[in-house]
């Protein structure tokens, strides 16, 4: 064996003058834009400052956030259910899931929201039980009236979450497909039931694949909530800021207010996603391949 002598290489690193030039140019352009914008009267920064923490805006931001969170929670649970149903050995489950996804992914969310807003016009009540069979006035089931004043907030939630569930189902399905078939076989050979296998073996592994696009969907949902005006729900961030801009005859500062809030929430969501991704990377640390 030859004695190895270790001398680190000393060399002049490659220079990148064009990168520096491009960066400098872009910084100058950005600075010019900012300086110009800070003086431009159309932006009306005074109004921006006045309304960005206005109590009405603050409350509307809360509505937007709760629409996002509640809709996504329902959509994720329903999406997982639909994706698992599509893989079920039961053909009834498979068909129901397929039809749900077909309808809710195949029509625009805006149209769906208008439909939900018209729910009480289309149906006056809804009934669980066996219809058309009754003994005098005793029906085999329960009637739920849909009042004219059905909460617009909840109609918006239903509209947003059912539409999103169809997309989540596809994301979850991709995640489930990414789990090697051998995992299911190993679980089966241990005597695990189909559901136990899904719950403890397949779904936890699929999460790693599911989370990044789900983070994307949450950010997307945050912005889609601005469509609830179709229901029509007008307490969310976008509708409320439009409303205020009608009072001051200038839409621009309030668009900026709304954008600032949307950007603030989506930034937080990005951080949350980072930590959740780390949490589900168990067993997949960069140490892969290192043999202990």
């Amino acid at each position: 064996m030859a004695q190895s002598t270790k001398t680190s290489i000393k060399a002049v690193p490659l220079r990148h003058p064009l990168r520096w030039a491009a960066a400098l140019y872009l910084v100058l352009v950005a600075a010019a834009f900012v300086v110009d914008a800070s003086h431009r009267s159309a932006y009306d920064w005074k109004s921006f400052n006045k309304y960005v923490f206005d109590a009405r805006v603050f409350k509307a931001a809360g509505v937007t956030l709760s629409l996002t969170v509640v809709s996504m929670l329902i959509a994720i649970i329903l999406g997982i259910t639909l994706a698992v149903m599509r893989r079920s050995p039961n053909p009834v489950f498979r068909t129901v899931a397929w039809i749900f996804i077909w309808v809710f992914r195949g029509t625009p969310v805006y149209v769906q929201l208008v439909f939900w807003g018209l729910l009480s016009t289309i149906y006056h009540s809804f009934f669980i039980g066996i219809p058309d069979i009754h003994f005098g006035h005793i029906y085999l089931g329960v009637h739920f009236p849909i009042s004219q004043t059905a909460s617009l907030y909840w109609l918006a939630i239903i509209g947003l979450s059912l539409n999103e569930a169809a997309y989540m189902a596809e994301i979850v399905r991709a995640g489930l497909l990414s789990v090697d078939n051998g995992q299911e076989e190993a679980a089966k050979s241990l005597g695990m039931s189909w559901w136990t296998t899904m719950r403890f073996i397949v779904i936890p592994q699929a999460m790693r694949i599911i989370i990044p696009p789900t983070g994307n969907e949450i950010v997307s949902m945050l912005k889609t909530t601005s469509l609830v005006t179709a229901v029509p729900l007008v307490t969310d961030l976008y509708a409320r800021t439009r409303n205020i801009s009608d009072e001051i005859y200038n839409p621009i500062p309030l668009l900026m207010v709304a954008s600032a809030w949307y950007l603030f929430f989506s930034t937080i969501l990005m951080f949350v996603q980072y930590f959740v991704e780390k949490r589900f990377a168990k067993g997949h640390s960069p140490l892969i391949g290192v043999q202990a």
Partner: protein
Amino acid sequence: MSNELMVQATEIHKSYGSNEVLKGITLEVKRGEVMCLIGPSGSGKSTFLRCINHLEKIDSGRLSVDGVIIGYREQHGKLYELKPSEAAKQRSGIGMVFQKFNLFPHMTALDNVISGMVRVQKIDKDVAVAEGKALLERVGLADKADHYPAHLSGGQQQRVAIARSLAMKPKLMLFDEPTSALDPELVGEVLDVMKGLAQSGMTMVVVTHEMGFAREVADSLVFMDNGVVVEAGVPAEVLGKPQHERTKSFLSKVI
């Protein structure tokens, strides 16, 4: 019903579409016996193994483990398909070790081993952990309990997989080419564990290409080709004095 027989297979047929993979397999494995199945790839040996714990459904024939028909219930001379929960219960008594280990990558070695005890047998976690550690020790991996599969070598992973199967206290262990995916220098450690298992009296059916293991450990050796059993007998005889042309040509290529 002879209590002597662990596996009893009669005229097993199995097709995928028009491709008949098993063309009437008749085999018996006695309690405590170690049987090795050898043969070229595509001969149906893995498929047959997978039929034994009902990972594959057979088309015709009769297959029973420990006197109980696999996948069906017999009542008044009629067969009824088992409910998934009943089929799962049957499987839990039959251990299976796969070529690609199929450890659960999101669980540590110990969690892999106790997964069946906790999720299927609903054994108390503390009891399961104690038992799981003992099993890891038995396969020589006591110090790797907290390692994830990705941080274990192939041989170590396969030994964890064996411990995971043993945790269910199976009456029969099936091995589907357990060393085929391993680097050559890691084969020995897995075979050693299997040898120990055989000596402890476990009934084992092993699909393998390890002729040395078959000769040394197996009580019987079955050569399959093209969906049929070509030759079966005591390993030393089948390997030493093969009777059939097909067996001879196969053995000349692998030994």
